[in-house]
Protein backbone atom coordinates (compact mmCIF):
# COMPACT_ATOMS: atom_id res chain seq x y z
CA UNK A 1 0.00 0.00 0.00
CA UNK A 2 1.36 3.45 -0.81
CA UNK A 3 2.16 5.67 2.12
CA UNK A 4 -0.42 8.32 1.31
CA UNK A 5 -3.29 5.82 1.59
CA UNK A 6 -1.71 4.37 4.69
CA UNK A 7 -1.86 7.71 6.56
CA UNK A 8 -5.59 7.17 7.16
CA UNK A 9 -4.81 4.40 9.61
CA UNK A 10 -3.07 6.82 12.01
CA UNK A 11 -6.21 8.96 12.37
CA UNK A 12 -6.15 10.14 16.00
CA UNK A 13 -2.37 10.12 16.45
CA UNK A 14 -0.58 13.48 16.59
CA UNK A 15 0.93 14.30 13.19
CA UNK A 16 2.36 17.81 13.25
CA UNK A 17 3.40 19.95 16.19
CA UNK A 18 4.65 23.51 15.85
CA UNK A 19 5.44 26.20 18.41
CA UNK A 20 1.76 27.15 18.61
CA UNK A 21 -0.31 24.39 17.03
CA UNK A 22 -0.77 20.68 16.84
CA UNK A 23 -2.74 18.52 14.42
CA UNK A 24 -3.71 14.87 14.31
CA UNK A 25 -3.33 12.74 11.19
CA UNK A 26 -7.11 12.92 10.68
CA UNK A 27 -7.01 16.74 10.72
CA UNK A 28 -4.08 16.96 8.34
CA UNK A 29 -5.78 14.49 5.97
CA UNK A 30 -9.05 16.42 6.13
CA UNK A 31 -7.35 19.77 5.36
CA UNK A 32 -5.35 18.29 2.52
CA UNK A 33 -8.47 16.70 1.03
CA UNK A 34 -10.29 20.03 1.02
CA UNK A 35 -7.33 21.65 -0.70
CA UNK A 36 -7.10 18.75 -3.16
CA UNK A 37 -10.77 19.17 -4.07
CA UNK A 38 -9.93 22.62 -5.50
CA UNK A 39 -7.49 21.26 -8.08
CA UNK A 40 -9.18 20.81 -11.41
CA UNK A 41 -7.98 17.46 -12.85
CA UNK A 42 -4.32 16.58 -12.49
CA UNK A 43 -2.55 19.90 -12.30
CA UNK A 44 0.97 21.22 -12.01
CA UNK A 45 1.30 22.90 -8.60
CA UNK A 46 4.22 25.00 -7.39
CA UNK A 47 4.62 24.51 -3.64
CA UNK A 48 6.56 27.29 -1.94
CA UNK A 49 7.95 25.30 0.94
CA UNK A 50 8.73 26.15 4.53
CA UNK A 51 8.78 23.84 7.52
CA UNK A 52 5.14 24.49 8.34
CA UNK A 53 1.77 22.74 8.32
CA UNK A 54 0.64 24.66 5.22
CA UNK A 55 3.43 23.14 3.15
CA UNK A 56 2.67 19.63 4.39
CA UNK A 57 -1.00 20.03 3.52
CA UNK A 58 -0.15 21.29 0.04
CA UNK A 59 2.24 18.39 -0.50
CA UNK A 60 -0.25 15.75 0.65
CA UNK A 61 -3.08 17.38 -1.33
CA UNK A 62 -1.03 16.99 -4.49
CA UNK A 63 -0.05 13.39 -3.85
CA UNK A 64 -3.65 12.47 -2.97
CA UNK A 65 -5.20 14.11 -6.02
CA UNK A 66 -2.39 12.87 -8.30
CA UNK A 67 -1.55 16.45 -9.08
CA UNK A 68 2.14 17.07 -9.63
CA UNK A 69 3.92 19.32 -7.13
CA UNK A 70 7.21 21.08 -7.74
CA UNK A 71 8.82 21.76 -4.37
CA UNK A 72 10.48 25.18 -4.24
CA UNK A 73 12.14 26.92 -1.33
CA UNK A 74 9.89 29.78 -0.17
CA UNK A 75 12.98 32.02 -0.08
CA UNK A 76 13.90 31.44 -3.73
CA UNK A 77 14.83 34.69 -5.44
CA UNK A 78 11.74 36.29 -7.04
CA UNK A 79 13.32 36.59 -10.46
CA UNK A 80 14.31 32.94 -10.48
CA UNK A 81 10.80 31.96 -9.40
CA UNK A 82 9.24 34.10 -12.15
CA UNK A 83 11.51 32.35 -14.62
CA UNK A 84 10.38 28.91 -13.41
CA UNK A 85 6.73 29.97 -13.68
CA UNK A 86 7.28 31.14 -17.23
CA UNK A 87 9.09 27.93 -18.08
CA UNK A 88 6.62 25.40 -16.63
CA UNK A 89 3.35 27.35 -16.48
CA UNK A 90 1.94 25.86 -13.28
CA UNK A 91 -1.85 25.85 -12.88
CA UNK A 92 -1.55 26.67 -9.16
CA UNK A 93 0.87 28.18 -6.69
CA UNK A 94 0.53 27.34 -3.00
CA UNK A 95 2.52 29.71 -0.83
CA UNK A 96 2.67 32.95 1.13
CA UNK A 97 4.07 35.16 -1.57
CA UNK A 98 1.74 36.89 -3.99
CA UNK A 99 4.05 36.32 -6.85
CA UNK A 100 2.56 37.06 -10.16
CA UNK A 101 -0.03 39.24 -11.87
CA UNK A 102 -1.32 36.38 -13.97
CA UNK A 103 -2.47 34.43 -10.88
CA UNK A 104 -5.53 35.04 -8.69
CA UNK A 105 -5.99 33.90 -5.13
CA UNK A 106 -8.92 31.48 -4.79
CA UNK A 107 -8.44 30.00 -1.32
CA UNK A 108 -6.43 30.56 1.80
CA UNK A 109 -5.51 28.44 4.80
CA UNK A 110 -3.19 29.53 7.58
CA UNK A 111 -0.62 31.84 6.06
CA UNK A 112 -0.85 30.30 2.60
CA UNK A 113 -2.85 31.20 -0.48
CA UNK A 114 -3.85 29.01 -3.37
CA UNK A 115 -3.30 31.05 -6.47
CA UNK A 116 -4.74 29.88 -9.77
CA UNK A 117 -3.33 30.77 -13.16
CA UNK A 118 -5.73 33.07 -15.01
CA UNK A 119 -4.90 31.33 -18.24
CA UNK A 120 -4.01 27.72 -17.52
CA UNK A 121 -2.42 25.26 -19.89
CA UNK A 122 -3.16 21.53 -19.89
CA UNK A 123 -0.02 19.66 -19.03
CA UNK A 124 0.43 16.18 -20.32
CA UNK A 125 1.82 14.10 -17.45
CA UNK A 126 3.20 10.62 -17.68
CA UNK A 127 1.15 8.23 -15.51
CA UNK A 128 4.14 7.33 -13.34
CA UNK A 129 5.07 10.92 -12.50
CA UNK A 130 4.34 11.94 -8.88
CA UNK A 131 6.71 14.69 -7.81
CA UNK A 132 9.24 17.19 -9.13
CA UNK A 133 12.30 18.34 -7.23
CA UNK A 134 14.84 20.95 -8.24
CA UNK A 135 18.33 19.83 -9.18
CA UNK A 136 19.67 22.89 -7.43
CA UNK A 137 17.90 24.83 -4.74
CA UNK A 138 20.08 27.89 -5.16
CA UNK A 139 20.58 28.59 -8.84
CA UNK A 140 16.88 28.10 -9.61
CA UNK A 141 17.83 26.02 -12.63
CA UNK A 142 14.82 24.90 -14.64
CA UNK A 143 16.27 21.39 -14.77
CA UNK A 144 14.08 19.24 -12.53
CA UNK A 145 14.18 15.67 -11.25
CA UNK A 146 11.11 13.56 -12.13
CA UNK A 147 10.10 11.14 -9.38
CA UNK A 148 7.41 8.46 -9.39
CA UNK A 149 5.08 7.15 -6.68
CA UNK A 150 7.14 3.94 -6.75
CA UNK A 151 10.31 6.00 -6.14
CA UNK A 152 8.80 7.67 -3.08
CA UNK A 153 7.25 4.52 -1.63
CA UNK A 154 10.30 2.32 -2.14
CA UNK A 155 12.78 4.81 -0.71
CA UNK A 156 10.48 5.60 2.20
CA UNK A 157 10.35 1.89 3.07
CA UNK A 158 14.11 1.42 2.65
CA UNK A 159 14.77 4.32 5.03
CA UNK A 160 12.30 3.06 7.62
CA UNK A 161 14.09 -0.29 7.44
CA UNK A 162 17.60 1.21 7.62
CA UNK A 163 16.87 3.51 10.55
CA UNK A 164 14.36 1.18 12.26
CA UNK A 165 11.91 4.05 12.47
CA UNK A 166 8.90 3.33 14.66
CA UNK A 167 5.91 5.41 15.69
CA UNK A 168 7.61 6.68 18.85
CA UNK A 169 10.32 8.48 16.89
CA UNK A 170 9.72 12.21 16.84
CA UNK A 171 11.80 14.22 14.34
CA UNK A 172 12.34 17.96 14.51
CA UNK A 173 13.01 19.75 11.22
CA UNK A 174 16.52 21.04 10.58
CA UNK A 175 16.52 20.97 6.77
CA UNK A 176 14.31 22.64 4.16
CA UNK A 177 11.09 20.79 3.24
CA UNK A 178 11.94 21.05 -0.47
CA UNK A 179 15.41 19.56 0.03
CA UNK A 180 15.45 15.87 -0.87
CA UNK A 181 16.94 14.77 2.47
CA UNK A 182 14.54 16.98 4.46
CA UNK A 183 11.60 15.58 2.50
CA UNK A 184 12.87 12.04 3.01
CA UNK A 185 12.87 12.54 6.78
CA UNK A 186 9.29 13.82 6.56
CA UNK A 187 8.10 10.97 4.30
CA UNK A 188 9.68 8.19 6.32
CA UNK A 189 8.29 9.45 9.62
CA UNK A 190 4.81 10.18 8.25
CA UNK A 191 4.71 6.66 6.84
CA UNK A 192 5.52 5.35 10.32
CA UNK A 193 2.74 7.36 12.00
CA UNK A 194 5.17 9.58 13.92
CA UNK A 195 4.62 13.01 15.35
CA UNK A 196 6.71 15.58 13.45
CA UNK A 197 7.89 18.85 14.97
CA UNK A 198 7.97 21.62 12.39
CA UNK A 199 10.00 24.77 12.86
CA UNK A 200 11.65 27.33 10.65
CA UNK A 201 14.10 28.16 13.44
CA UNK A 202 17.59 26.91 12.90
CA UNK A 203 20.04 25.28 15.26
CA UNK A 204 21.68 28.68 15.84
CA UNK A 205 18.44 29.89 17.49
CA UNK A 206 17.45 29.41 21.09
CA UNK A 207 13.83 28.84 19.93
CA UNK A 208 14.94 25.70 18.11
CA UNK A 209 16.55 24.14 21.17
CA UNK A 210 13.71 25.19 23.47
CA UNK A 211 11.22 23.54 21.12
CA UNK A 212 13.36 20.40 20.82
CA UNK A 213 13.55 20.04 24.61
CA UNK A 214 9.97 21.06 25.34
CA UNK A 215 8.41 18.76 22.71
CA UNK A 216 10.90 15.95 23.40
CA UNK A 217 12.17 15.46 19.85
CA UNK A 218 14.03 12.17 19.44
CA UNK A 219 15.81 12.68 16.14
CA UNK A 220 17.09 15.11 13.52
CA UNK A 221 19.22 15.08 10.39
CA UNK A 222 22.10 17.30 9.44
CA UNK A 223 24.34 18.15 6.54
CA UNK A 224 28.10 18.45 7.18
CA UNK A 225 27.72 22.13 8.11
CA UNK A 226 25.12 21.25 10.77
CA UNK A 227 27.70 18.99 12.40
CA UNK A 228 30.42 21.62 12.12
CA UNK A 229 28.14 24.01 14.02
CA UNK A 230 27.22 21.36 16.61
CA UNK A 231 30.93 20.74 17.05
CA UNK A 232 31.50 24.45 17.68
CA UNK A 233 28.62 24.38 20.20
CA UNK A 234 30.34 21.57 22.08
CA UNK A 235 27.82 18.82 21.32
CA UNK A 236 29.39 16.59 23.99
CA UNK A 237 28.30 19.04 26.70
CA UNK A 238 24.79 19.62 25.39
CA UNK A 239 22.06 18.06 27.49
CA UNK A 240 19.45 16.67 25.11
CA UNK A 241 17.86 13.77 26.99
CA UNK A 242 15.12 13.05 24.44
CA UNK A 243 17.46 12.61 21.45
CA UNK A 244 18.10 8.95 20.59
CA UNK A 245 19.16 9.01 16.94
CA UNK A 246 20.76 11.52 14.58
CA UNK A 247 21.59 11.14 10.91
CA UNK A 248 24.08 12.84 8.60
CA UNK A 249 23.89 13.16 4.81
CA UNK A 250 24.04 15.85 2.15
CA UNK A 251 27.79 15.75 1.63
CA UNK A 252 30.90 14.25 3.06
CA UNK A 253 31.66 14.87 6.70
CA UNK A 254 35.41 14.77 7.35
CA UNK A 255 36.63 11.50 8.80
CA UNK A 256 37.80 13.30 11.95
CA UNK A 257 34.41 14.87 12.62
CA UNK A 258 32.61 11.67 11.73
CA UNK A 259 34.72 9.77 14.24
CA UNK A 260 34.32 12.48 16.86
CA UNK A 261 30.51 12.43 16.61
CA UNK A 262 30.48 8.63 16.59
CA UNK A 263 32.41 8.60 19.85
CA UNK A 264 30.41 11.37 21.53
CA UNK A 265 27.14 9.71 20.49
CA UNK A 266 28.32 6.33 21.73
CA UNK A 267 28.91 7.82 25.22
CA UNK A 268 25.58 9.62 25.16
CA UNK A 269 23.64 6.56 24.00
CA UNK A 270 22.65 8.27 20.75
CA UNK A 271 22.72 6.38 17.47
CA UNK A 272 24.76 8.27 14.86
CA UNK A 273 24.06 7.20 11.30
CA UNK A 274 25.95 8.49 8.29
CA UNK A 275 24.06 8.24 5.01
CA UNK A 276 24.61 9.02 1.35
CA UNK A 277 22.05 10.27 -1.11
CA UNK A 278 21.11 12.33 -4.13
CA UNK A 279 17.91 13.92 -5.35
CA UNK A 280 18.04 11.56 -8.36
CA UNK A 281 17.66 8.62 -5.97
CA UNK A 282 14.65 10.10 -4.13
CA UNK A 283 17.07 10.99 -1.34
CA UNK A 284 19.04 8.22 0.27
CA UNK A 285 20.99 5.30 -1.18
CA UNK A 286 23.14 4.02 1.66
CA UNK A 287 23.74 4.07 5.38
CA UNK A 288 26.47 3.16 7.81
CA UNK A 289 24.80 1.22 10.63
CA UNK A 290 25.46 2.73 14.05
CA UNK A 291 27.36 -0.38 15.16
CA UNK A 292 30.02 0.42 12.51
CA UNK A 293 30.07 4.20 13.04
CA UNK A 294 33.43 4.12 14.86
CA UNK A 295 35.20 1.22 13.12
CA UNK A 296 34.19 2.42 9.64
CA UNK A 297 34.17 6.19 10.23
CA UNK A 298 34.43 8.06 6.92
CA UNK A 299 32.44 5.41 5.05
CA UNK A 300 28.97 5.88 3.54
CA UNK A 301 28.25 2.26 4.45
CA UNK A 302 26.27 -0.07 2.22
CA UNK A 303 23.23 0.32 -0.02
CA UNK A 304 19.78 0.52 1.57
CA UNK A 305 17.37 -2.41 1.27
CA UNK A 306 16.29 -2.91 -2.34
CA UNK A 307 19.31 -1.18 -3.85
CA UNK A 308 22.91 -2.01 -4.61
CA UNK A 309 26.16 -0.27 -5.53
CA UNK A 310 29.02 -1.09 -7.84
CA UNK A 311 31.99 0.80 -9.28
CA UNK A 312 33.04 1.26 -12.89
CA UNK A 313 36.35 2.39 -14.36
CA UNK A 314 36.80 5.03 -17.06
CA UNK A 315 36.11 2.39 -19.76
CA UNK A 316 32.78 1.63 -18.16
CA UNK A 317 33.92 -1.81 -16.91
CA UNK A 318 32.94 -3.05 -13.44
CA UNK A 319 35.72 -2.89 -10.86
CA UNK A 320 35.88 -6.16 -8.92
CA UNK A 321 38.84 -5.51 -6.61
CA UNK A 322 38.65 -3.58 -3.33
CA UNK A 323 40.49 -0.28 -2.74
CA UNK A 324 40.36 0.76 -6.41
CA UNK A 325 38.64 4.04 -7.23
CA UNK A 326 35.88 4.25 -9.82
CA UNK A 327 32.55 5.93 -10.50
CA UNK A 328 29.86 4.89 -8.06
CA UNK A 329 26.79 3.39 -9.74
CA UNK A 330 23.58 2.74 -7.84
CA UNK A 331 20.73 0.47 -8.88
CA UNK A 332 17.38 0.42 -7.14
CA UNK A 333 13.65 1.17 -7.35
CA UNK A 334 14.24 4.69 -5.98
CA UNK A 335 16.22 5.90 -9.01
CA UNK A 336 14.28 8.77 -10.60
CA UNK A 337 12.50 8.57 -13.96
CA UNK A 338 14.82 11.22 -15.40
CA UNK A 339 15.09 14.97 -15.73
CA UNK A 340 12.72 17.59 -17.10
CA UNK A 341 14.02 20.69 -18.83
CA UNK A 342 10.60 22.01 -19.89
CA UNK A 343 6.90 21.26 -19.47
CA UNK A 344 6.85 18.87 -22.44
CA UNK A 345 9.29 16.60 -20.64
CA UNK A 346 6.63 15.96 -17.98
CA UNK A 347 5.07 13.41 -20.35
CA UNK A 348 8.27 11.37 -20.51
CA UNK A 349 8.45 7.96 -18.83
CA UNK A 350 11.32 6.16 -17.14
CA UNK A 351 14.61 6.92 -18.87
CA UNK A 352 16.96 5.51 -16.23
CA UNK A 353 15.60 1.98 -15.72
CA UNK A 354 16.70 2.04 -12.12
CA UNK A 355 20.36 2.82 -12.81
CA UNK A 356 22.03 5.98 -11.52
CA UNK A 357 25.51 7.17 -12.41
CA UNK A 358 26.19 9.17 -9.27
CA UNK A 359 29.10 11.23 -10.61
CA UNK A 360 30.94 10.46 -7.37
CA UNK A 361 34.26 8.67 -7.29
CA UNK A 362 34.29 5.96 -4.66
CA UNK A 363 36.02 2.79 -3.54
CA UNK A 364 35.01 -0.29 -1.61
CA UNK A 365 36.95 -1.94 1.21
CA UNK A 366 37.45 -5.70 1.79
CA UNK A 367 34.31 -5.86 3.90
CA UNK A 368 32.05 -4.22 1.35
CA UNK A 369 31.85 -0.70 2.81
CA UNK A 370 31.91 2.19 0.36
CA UNK A 371 33.94 5.41 0.68
CA UNK A 372 33.46 8.59 -1.37
CA UNK A 373 36.76 9.92 -2.70
CA UNK A 374 35.78 12.80 -4.99
CA UNK A 375 33.58 14.14 -7.77
CA UNK A 376 33.60 13.29 -11.44
CA UNK A 377 31.51 16.26 -12.54
CA UNK A 378 31.72 20.00 -12.14
CA UNK A 379 29.72 20.30 -8.96
CA UNK A 380 30.51 21.52 -5.49
CA UNK A 381 28.40 21.14 -2.38
CA UNK A 382 27.79 24.30 -0.41
CA UNK A 383 26.13 23.64 2.95
CA UNK A 384 24.60 20.43 1.64
CA UNK A 385 23.26 21.98 -1.54
CA UNK A 386 24.63 20.83 -4.84
CA UNK A 387 25.81 23.75 -6.91
CA UNK A 388 26.58 23.32 -10.58
CA UNK A 389 29.61 25.39 -11.54
CA UNK A 390 28.34 25.61 -15.12
CA UNK A 391 25.03 27.06 -13.95
CA UNK A 392 26.76 29.70 -11.85
CA UNK A 393 28.80 30.59 -14.91
CA UNK A 394 25.67 31.10 -17.00
CA UNK A 395 24.05 33.23 -14.29
CA UNK A 396 27.16 35.43 -14.19
CA UNK A 397 27.17 35.74 -17.98
CA UNK A 398 23.45 36.59 -18.04
CA UNK A 399 24.25 39.42 -15.62
CA UNK A 400 26.93 40.83 -17.83
CA UNK A 401 30.07 39.35 -16.29
CA UNK A 402 32.93 37.62 -18.02
CA UNK A 403 34.16 34.89 -15.75
CA UNK A 404 34.50 31.16 -15.15
CA UNK A 405 33.76 29.11 -12.07
CA UNK A 406 35.65 26.44 -10.28
CA UNK A 407 35.64 25.25 -6.72
CA UNK A 408 36.67 22.78 -4.12
CA UNK A 409 34.55 20.99 -1.53
CA UNK A 410 32.24 23.72 -0.20
CA UNK A 411 33.93 26.77 -1.69
CA UNK A 412 32.86 28.44 -4.92
CA UNK A 413 35.68 30.17 -6.76
CA UNK A 414 34.90 32.65 -9.51
CA UNK A 415 37.80 33.63 -11.74
CA UNK A 416 37.68 36.78 -13.83
CA UNK A 417 40.07 38.68 -16.07
CA UNK A 418 38.42 41.95 -15.05
CA UNK A 419 39.89 43.42 -11.87
CA UNK A 420 36.97 45.82 -11.39
CA UNK A 421 34.42 42.99 -11.44
CA UNK A 422 35.65 41.33 -8.25
CA UNK A 423 33.31 43.02 -5.75
CA UNK A 424 30.19 43.26 -7.97
CA UNK A 425 30.59 39.61 -9.00
CA UNK A 426 30.59 38.41 -5.42
CA UNK A 427 27.60 40.58 -4.51
CA UNK A 428 25.55 39.65 -7.58
CA UNK A 429 26.15 35.90 -7.40
CA UNK A 430 25.52 35.82 -3.68
CA UNK A 431 22.33 37.86 -4.05
CA UNK A 432 20.85 35.75 -6.84
CA UNK A 433 21.92 32.30 -5.70
CA UNK A 434 21.67 32.97 -1.94
CA UNK A 435 25.05 31.30 -1.57
CA UNK A 436 26.56 32.95 1.45
CA UNK A 437 29.29 35.49 0.53
CA UNK A 438 31.75 33.73 2.86
CA UNK A 439 31.54 30.66 0.61
CA UNK A 440 32.37 32.60 -2.53
CA UNK A 441 35.80 33.81 -3.43
CA UNK A 442 36.50 35.86 -6.54
CA UNK A 443 39.99 35.74 -7.99
CA UNK A 444 41.59 37.77 -10.72
CA UNK A 445 43.98 36.32 -13.29
CA UNK A 446 45.46 37.89 -16.42
CA UNK A 447 44.25 35.24 -18.81
CA UNK A 448 41.82 32.38 -18.34
CA UNK A 449 43.43 29.31 -19.97
CA UNK A 450 41.47 28.01 -22.96
CA UNK A 451 42.12 25.50 -25.71
CA UNK A 452 42.06 26.35 -29.44
CA UNK A 453 38.29 26.05 -29.65
CA UNK A 454 37.85 28.39 -26.70
CA UNK A 455 36.94 25.72 -24.14
CA UNK A 456 38.12 26.55 -20.64
CA UNK A 457 40.92 24.32 -19.39
CA UNK A 458 39.73 23.88 -15.83
CA UNK A 459 42.61 21.70 -14.67
CA UNK A 460 45.06 24.32 -15.88
CA UNK A 461 42.94 27.04 -14.28
CA UNK A 462 42.95 25.24 -10.92
CA UNK A 463 46.72 24.93 -11.13
CA UNK A 464 47.09 28.65 -11.86
CA UNK A 465 45.04 29.65 -8.81
CA UNK A 466 46.73 26.98 -6.65
CA UNK A 467 43.54 25.02 -6.06
Amino acid sequence: MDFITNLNSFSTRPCVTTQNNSYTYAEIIEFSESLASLFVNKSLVFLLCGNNEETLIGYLACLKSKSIPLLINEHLDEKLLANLILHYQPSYIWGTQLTNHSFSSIFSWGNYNLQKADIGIDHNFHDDLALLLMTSGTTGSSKLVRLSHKNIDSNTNSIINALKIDKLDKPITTLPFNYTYGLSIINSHLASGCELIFTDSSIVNKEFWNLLIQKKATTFGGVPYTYQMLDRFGFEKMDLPSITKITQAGGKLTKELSLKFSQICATKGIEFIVMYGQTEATARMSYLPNSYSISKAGSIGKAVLGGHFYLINSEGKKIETPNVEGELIYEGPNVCLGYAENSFDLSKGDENNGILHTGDIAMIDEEGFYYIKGRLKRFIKVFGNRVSLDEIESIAVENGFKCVCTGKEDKLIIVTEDNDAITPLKQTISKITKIHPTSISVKHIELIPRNESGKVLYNELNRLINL
Partner: protein
Amino acid sequence: MTNREKYVQVFVDSFSVNPDQLDENFVYQCVPEWDSIGHMGMIASLEETFDIMMETDDIIDFGSFTKGIELLAKYDVTI
Protein backbone atom coordinates in the same frame (compact mmCIF):
# COMPACT_ATOMS: atom_id res chain seq x y z
CA MET B 1 38.63 52.19 16.79
CA THR B 2 36.24 52.13 19.73
CA ASN B 3 34.51 48.89 20.69
CA ARG B 4 31.31 50.30 19.24
CA GLU B 5 32.99 50.91 15.89
CA LYS B 6 34.54 47.46 15.90
CA TYR B 7 31.18 45.88 16.77
CA VAL B 8 29.42 47.76 13.96
CA GLN B 9 32.17 46.81 11.52
CA VAL B 10 31.68 43.09 12.23
CA PHE B 11 27.99 43.44 11.29
CA VAL B 12 28.79 45.49 8.20
CA ASP B 13 31.31 42.90 7.00
CA SER B 14 29.26 39.84 7.92
CA PHE B 15 25.92 40.95 6.49
CA SER B 16 26.84 43.52 3.80
CA VAL B 17 24.72 46.24 5.48
CA ASN B 18 25.08 49.97 6.08
CA PRO B 19 25.90 51.08 9.64
CA ASP B 20 22.68 53.17 9.74
CA GLN B 21 20.61 49.96 9.38
CA LEU B 22 21.96 48.71 12.68
CA ASP B 23 19.51 49.29 15.51
CA GLU B 24 17.14 47.29 17.75
CA ASN B 25 15.20 46.20 14.65
CA PHE B 26 18.23 44.51 13.16
CA VAL B 27 17.43 40.90 14.11
CA TYR B 28 18.23 37.35 12.95
CA GLN B 29 17.00 36.74 9.38
CA CYS B 30 16.02 40.40 8.81
CA VAL B 31 18.41 40.30 5.86
CA PRO B 32 19.08 37.14 3.80
CA GLU B 33 22.75 37.28 4.80
CA TRP B 34 21.90 36.79 8.48
CA ASP B 35 21.07 33.11 8.24
CA SER B 36 22.61 30.27 10.20
CA ILE B 37 25.78 30.43 8.13
CA GLY B 38 26.09 34.20 8.45
CA HIS B 39 25.38 33.89 12.14
CA MET B 40 28.30 31.56 12.77
CA GLY B 41 30.55 33.75 10.63
CA MET B 42 29.60 36.81 12.67
CA ILE B 43 30.22 34.99 15.95
CA ALA B 44 33.66 33.87 14.75
CA SER B 45 34.44 37.40 13.69
CA LEU B 46 33.35 38.88 17.06
CA GLU B 47 35.43 36.30 18.89
CA GLU B 48 38.47 37.26 16.86
CA THR B 49 37.87 41.01 17.14
CA PHE B 50 37.42 41.00 20.91
CA ASP B 51 39.62 37.98 21.64
CA ILE B 52 36.89 36.09 23.44
CA MET B 53 35.34 32.61 23.27
CA MET B 54 31.57 32.70 23.43
CA GLU B 55 29.47 30.12 25.26
CA THR B 56 26.92 28.11 23.24
CA ASP B 57 24.04 29.58 25.25
CA ASP B 58 25.13 33.07 24.23
CA ILE B 59 25.66 32.11 20.57
CA ILE B 60 22.10 30.83 20.27
CA ASP B 61 20.68 33.72 22.29
CA PHE B 62 22.36 36.30 20.02
CA GLY B 63 19.18 37.19 18.14
CA SER B 64 19.68 40.88 17.45
CA PHE B 65 22.18 43.71 17.18
CA THR B 66 21.00 45.04 20.56
CA LYS B 67 20.97 41.65 22.30
CA GLY B 68 24.58 41.17 21.22
CA ILE B 69 25.68 44.29 23.09
CA GLU B 70 24.09 42.93 26.27
CA LEU B 71 25.70 39.48 25.78
CA LEU B 72 29.18 40.84 25.10
CA ALA B 73 29.10 42.64 28.46
CA LYS B 74 29.36 39.17 30.05
CA TYR B 75 32.79 38.89 28.44
CA ASP B 76 33.87 42.29 29.75
CA VAL B 77 33.43 43.87 26.36
CA THR B 78 31.66 47.21 26.73
CA ILE B 79 30.14 48.42 23.51
